[in-house]
Structure formats: C-alpha cells, structure tokens
C-alpha cells in the first residue's frame, strides 16, 4: 500500500492541485455549479445533491450538496431546509427591499445550525469532503457551509491500553471534538489553549495542539508548532505518524514523544508543562517533551500512598533492568563466571542444563524469539483465537520444550520473568526487546564485561538524548533536585510543590486573576 502511494505521490498531487484552483469563484448560475460539482466529484458515488425551490412561487432555487453518510440528514432537513422553505414562502419576507443579500437572510433564518459563508469553489469542496453540507443559491456568488457533520464513533470508555486501579475511567476516542471537550471539562481555565491545524496533503486531518499558557514553556509551544508545520505527508492516520516526524532522534530506540489514551493522565501532563498533540481519528494523544522518568510514572502513583507509590516505582525500575539484562546475565553467569555462583545453585544450574543440546546462548536466543513470536501472534490474532494461542504457547514454551530436553527449566523461568517484566513498562517495550538481544550477544562474547560495555553505551546514549530541548534524563542528568521528588521516590502529592519536566517556570500569565492555577497545591511557592 505504502509503496504504491509513494510512487504516485507527485503525480497525484499535481492533478488535484490543478483540478480546483484555490481562487476559483462560485458560479452564480446553479446549472454551472452542478456541472462543476459533477466534474469534481466524478466517480464519487457517495456524493449527492438535491435541488429545492422556496420563496413565493418557487422564486428561489437552492442546491444542497453533501456526501452521504457524513452529514446528519435529519438535522439538515428539520433545522435548515424546512425553516428555509417555510419562512421564505411568504412574499413580504423575500423582497429585495428588506435589505442585505439573500445568503445573509438565510443565515438569519437558520438558528440551530452553524452556517458559514464560502467564497470560493475550493473552500466549498473542502467543506463537502470534510462532512459538511453546502448550500448554493441561484444568483449568489457565495455558498453557505452548513455544519451538520454527523458525529459517529465510539462512546467514551476505559482505554484498553492503559488501565488503572484508581482514577478516571475516561479515555479518549477517535473524535477530536469529543477529546477536546474531555480536556476542557477537566481544566476550566481560559489559559487552556487549543490550537487547530490541518496536516496531511490528502487527508487534511484535523490536528490540534493543546497546552496551558503560562505553565507550558513558550519555546516548547513554538517549537511544536514549527515542527508540526514542517510535516509533509499524504495522510495522518494516527498520532504515531506525527510522532515519527517530530521526534528529536528518529533512530533512537527510546521514545522522546509520549502518548496516552487516558484523559486524566493527559491533564496531569498539561499541568506539568507538557504540550499535547491531538489528532482526529485516533484516541492516542501525544505529549512533549517526554522524559525517561515518565516511563515509570503511572497516574496511580499520585492517587496512592506515597510509600506504596515509591515501592512500585522502584519495582518498575527493577523490572526495566531485569527485562533487558536477565537473559544476558544468565548466559554470562553460566558460560563465563561460574566462579561467582554459590555451590548449591551451581549444582541446580548444572542439573537443569544437563542433556540440553544447545549452548545457553542459543537456548536463550531461541526461547526469546519464540516468546516474541507468541506475543506478536497474541496481538495480531482475533481475540477468540488469542485464548487458544496462549494455551498453545504455555504448553509449547513451558512444558513440551522442557520435557523434550530442548530447553532447561531455568531458561523457561528466565524467559518468563523477562517477559513479565517487559510488560510492566509499555513505553519501552521496543527498546527493551531489541536491547535484550544486544545484551545477550554481548554477554555471549565477553560475559559480564560485554554487558558492561552495552550498559555504558546505552547510558551514554540516554544522556545524549533531548526531547524538545529538555535533557532526556532529567532529573538525574542534569540533577534537578526539585523534580527528584517525583522520580524513583514519590513524595506525597501535597509535598510536590514544583512541576516536573519544564524546569524554569515563569509566572507570566498573571494578567487574569482568576486563572485557577491551584490545580497543584502550593503552586504559589514555585519560582
């Protein structure tokens, strides 16, 4: 699909561009309008138009054009066409003497639905394809855009990708308007800025950036806007496409742009000075800048007791290390550094390895590959089959391979532990998966020394990363003591008097006195 599109990209663009000149006027004659629309929408069978007459003796001819399914026909009929026909049926209402242009009178006549003017054919056609109805009037060089987009899509529900024990169950949906409403609902503050733009030369997807003015750093907002403007793609199907285009380091395994489906999480990020990027058609919202520490932060941490939250943070950090290092460590221990294994454990290790035809490295490699296959299959399969898959996987991985003497018990335990740990930190799932292999290979060549090399290389890489100007390893490198309170340790929420992420906050927005900035307690203390 992608290949075909890319090959024809330039040709297509030219064609579409030539088809409608952006300054082409709307013809006053309805006949001409019809011909033109037929030309433009040839081969577009879901495009429809209807002609009406209204006014006394049918003196006013109008044409309504729309795309079937995109508009709410009921509203269109009841709120637009019926009032027009009814009100303009009397003579006195329609006289040139009443003043103003006819379309202005139309706007006056329709109350419940949003009506806008369209000056050019280009504008009109764009509105039609984005789901609005167009109303052309005989004798007028302006058309009316009728905002009767039909809202279709999922209900707001709890996201599958991020579940939490406490906190809001509301997740974003595919509809951008609903998503912005969800955010507004939580931040009742005029400083919450939602700026719309369109990305995608073919799809013209609505994308909006969202931030709280005064909390988010101006430079970051500016940078986000600039990077979004630079994006040149045919279509934006998911924020993932935007993410790739605005990342600071496109080839880094570690994400420098965060994403979330949870509304309360996003608002939390906005309050931390992040800029959110929402996109129509996907529930995943991007947040920038994104730091390393955010990967082990979970909204539950802030709702729970601080001690427990700290414990969970540390557990997540350990699981991150385990998911990357464990297979490598095992191979290094068994193949190189038997000396450090206690006697009893060594016997157990040797016993479980007895009769295994593969070296520990090959064994680990195979098992991890099998696990990754299983994971991928589990994601791709239709859900009912997924059940069967997990049973097969458990038996193949756990039982049969051990019974057949292909792998050792211990290796099954190690791969399983690694797998569990890698699921604990979803943002890093790609990074850990690939690094695991790197560590494994290094461990097989140089033992602990190899792991050490890889570890240092990764650390250097992490310290080098930036996300929208903020060092990735903040608050550790550089050490930012204020934010350390929300790193590996979590202090209670009332003690977090500084925002994480953006380091230098300036209270610039002191203009409006009632900007409810008390979303985080003790905000007045921040400098």
């Amino acid at each position: 699909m992608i290949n075909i599109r890319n090959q024809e990209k330039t040709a297509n663009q030219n064609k579409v561009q030539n088809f409608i000149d952006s300054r082409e006027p709307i013809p006053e004659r309805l006949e001409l309008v019809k011909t033109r629309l037929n030309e433009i929408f040839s081969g577009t069978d879901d495009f429809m138009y209807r002609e009406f007459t209204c006014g006394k003796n049918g003196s006013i001819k109008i044409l309504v054009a729309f795309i079937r399914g995109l508009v709410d026909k009921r509203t269109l009929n009841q709120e637009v066409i019926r009032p027009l026909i009814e009100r303009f049926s009397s003579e006195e209402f329609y006289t040139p003497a009443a003043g103003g242009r006819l379309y202005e009178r139309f706007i006056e006549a329709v109350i419940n639905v949003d009506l806008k003017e369209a000056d050019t054919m280009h504008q009109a056609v764009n509105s039609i394809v984005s789901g609005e109805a167009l109303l052309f009037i005989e004798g007028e060089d302006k058309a009316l855009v009728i905002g009767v987009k039909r809202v279709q899509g999922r209900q707001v529900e709890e996201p599958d990708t991020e579940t939490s024990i406490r906190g809001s169950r509301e997740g974003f949906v595919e509809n951008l308007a609903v998503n912005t409403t969800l955010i507004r609902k939580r931040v009742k503050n005029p400083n919450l800025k939602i700026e719309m733009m369109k990305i995608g030369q073919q799809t013209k997807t609505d994308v909006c950036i969202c931030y709280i003015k005064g909390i988010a750093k101006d430079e970051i907002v500016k940078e986000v806007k600039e990077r979004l403007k630079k994006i040149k793609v045919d279509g934006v199907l998911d924020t993932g496409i935007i993410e790739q285009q605005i990342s600071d380091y496109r080839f880094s395994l570690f994400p420098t742009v965060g994403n979330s489906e949870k509304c309360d999480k996003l608002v939390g990020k906005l309050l931390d000075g992040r800029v959110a990027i929402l996109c129509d058609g996907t529930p995943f919202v991007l947040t920038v800048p994104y730091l390393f520490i955010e990967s082990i932060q979970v909204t539950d941490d802030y709702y729970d007791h601080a001690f427990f939250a700290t414990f969970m943070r540390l557990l997540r950090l350990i699981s991150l290390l385990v998911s990357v290092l464990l297979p490598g460590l095992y191979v290094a221990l068994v193949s190189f550094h038997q000396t450090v294994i206690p006697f009893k454990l060594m016997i157990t290790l040797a016993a479980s390895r007895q009769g295994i035809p593969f070296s520990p490295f090959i064994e680990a490699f195979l098992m991890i590959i099998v696990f990754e296959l299983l994971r991928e299959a589990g994601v791709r399969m239709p859900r009912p089959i997924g059940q069967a898959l997990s049973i097969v996987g458990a038996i193949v991985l756990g039982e049969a391979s051990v019974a057949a003497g292909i792998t050792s018990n211990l290796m099954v335990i190690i791969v399983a532990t690694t797998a569990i740990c890698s699921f604990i930190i979803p943002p890093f799932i790609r990074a850990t998966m690939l690094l695991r292999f790197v560590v494994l290979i290094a461990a097989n060549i140089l033992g602990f020394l190899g792991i050490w090399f890889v570890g240092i290389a990764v650390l250097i890489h992490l310290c080098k990363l930036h996300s929208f100007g903020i060092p990735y390893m903040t608050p550790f490198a550089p050490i930012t003591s204020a934010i350390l309170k929300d790193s590996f340790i979590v202090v209670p929420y009332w003690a977090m008097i500084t925002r994480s992420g953006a380091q230098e906050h300036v209270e610039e927005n002191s203009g409006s006195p009632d900007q409810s900035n008390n979303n985080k307690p003790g905000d007045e203390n921040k400098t």
Partner: protein
Amino acid sequence: MICRKGSKGAKIALLAIFLLSALLLSGCWNNRDLTEMNLVSAAGLERTKDGKLLLTVQVVEPAAIQSTSSGKGQGGNGSPYPTYVSSYEGETLFETIRGILSTLDKKLFFSATQILILGENLAKDDIIEALDFFQRDHEINYKMYILVAKDVSPQEILEIKNDLDPIEAMYLKRTVDNNVARGTVKRTMLIDLVKDIYCSGKQIAIGQITKSGKKEVRTEGIAVFKDGKLAGWLNRRETRGYLFAINQIKSTIVNVPVEEGLVAIETISAKGKVHVPFKKGKPAALGIKVNIEAAVGEYAGTGKLECPERIYELERKTEEVVRKEIEDALKKVQKEFSSDIFGFGQQVRKYNPKYWKKIKKEWNELFSELPADIKVKAKLRRVGSVRDSLEKDE
C-alpha cells in the same frame, strides 16, 4: 533546541576512556558451559609411600541430584549416585589434575570445591609445597575448608556415603560449620590458611577429621604444624582452650564441677586476646585474656542457685575450668611441639618489630620457655527458666 556542543574528538576520547576502563575489570574470557565441566565438590591430597602425590576428587553428577529431588535419594535401583570419587597419582598437583582426566570425562572445576582434605603422611611431609597450586590458580574457591585426616586416608573419607546429604562434601562441610555451637574444631578456610602461612610469627593449625564409623566422620581437634610439617594433635578440650585464646569461640558448653554435680555453662559470647607483655626490652610472659559471657544451661545435680554468691562462685569455677583448658593447650604446644599457633610471635612483630628482627630465628625456642599469663573473666547472665535444679519439695 538545546544541544550540547563539543569537539568530536573529545567526545570520542571520552567514550573510549569509559569503554576501555571496563577492560581493567578482570574476568574470565573463555566461554564454556557448566555442563562441560566436572564440579569438584571435595578433594583429598595424600603422599604415597613412594613419595608421589595422590589426588582424590569427588565430582558431582548434577543430573542424579535432580532425579533424587528431595536430596535423600540413594543410588539404589540403578539410578546414578550423585557423586563420583576418583583418584590419580602424580608428581606435581597440576600434572595430577590433568592426568586424572584419563579416568574422568570432563575438565575439573575447582571453583565450587567445598572441602580439601590433607592426608596425615602429606601433613608430616610438607603441606606448604602441596598448597602452592591452590594459591596460584585463579579458579580456586578461597573459601574451601581445609581439614587434616587423622588415622585415615583422604580417599576413605571422600568415599563415605551416607544419606544425610546427597553430596558428601556438603555433609563434611556442615559438620565443620556447626562448630559455632560446639567450639571443638578449628574452621580453616584456604584463604585464612594462606594468610597464616605468609604471616611470620604464627604457626598454622588446621582442623582434624577422622572416621568415626562406617558411614560417619568426626571433626574434632586440630592438627598442629611447625614450619609446614605436622607436629602433633590437640584433643577436643585443648582445642577449645586454643580457640578461646584466639577468639574463635561463638558458643560452647563448658562443664563446671560443683559440690553436688556438674553445671553445664553455655557461653553466649567469648572474646579472646593474646599479647606479649615486655619487661626491660624482653618478652616477660605469654599473655592470654579471655572474657566470657555465659548462661547456666543445665544443672546435673541437686544444687541450688538461690543467691548471687552462688552465682559468683560458679563464675569463678567456670573461669578456672576455661583457664585450665587454655593452659593445657598452651603448655602442650609450648613444650611438646614448640609451635606458636597462638600467634604470640605476630604480636611481638607488630608491637616490637626491632626486637622481632633480632630474635626471629630463635622465636620457637624462646616461645617454649616463656611463662604463661592467662586471665579469664566469666560473667553469668542468666540461669534459665528455673533457679534450682529439679527436686522434690520436702
């Protein structure tokens, strides 16, 4: 966008420093599987009559342990026994270790060795020479226990099979480990032994092991060495006296005779210290100070412990018993072996190095002549749940 700018060369240099520093870490470079080696759980060394070195190794068969999962399993019913014992003769130890591969399938791996048993003949000959390999090789478990076999060859001990532990070496090791509750054998690790060998002013003493039954060993007493050669043995009591003096007693039971029977005193903690007081630039005595905290564990008799005076009396008697034990041990090594296993010479070397340099050669004779000055202080902390011994109320 903020981006650190630095010269590229400096960055690469920094990276190189980081990565190369890792090379300073020592490590094993050869990749080999656990299943490709024989884990030696215990080893024995003996000198044969014709002066050759006889190495006996006990290697573990891990698979057999797994099959006898509870660990109590035996080799019966045709299932393999968890350990295998093999011997080989050679002139040097290293040669023997390689030579034994003619009977064993995989290379020997000494990093997990728990016990090294030295034969009596080897001990009489010279152990220092035999231990050289164990100091020199890099894959040796420095925490392995060393014992000297008395009246029995190491091979016989390693061939003992009983059901207490699937790996006999672990059984042997634990009998030494439980010394913390009895204090009658010296627990000697290879690393300690090596330290003692290098230490001038101290002779070595190694725990003793004997066969006490068909399927049992007994680890009690110590072997006293003089300049690397076996000089003699200390019995259980003397060993305890020695251990009191060198501060190696954790808990032990001291029987104290009183008028109406015996009182078993359990020491809770004991602190021992040796020192050499000097008078007029010459060592005046061999000083030993021991402080004991103890509790009454048993009253085998009909006595009463009703007043503090009785307790004080008991304390004095405990001191006397312990003092006697230490004195016996000291006297024996002084007069019979003239081997300074207490490390008095070390004290002289530490605090009077100039004097030590002069008399280093004659220290053994000097040591044998010096009078003993043994001070024991005992403190009874508890008498247990009852005050008096059990008797009918009349």
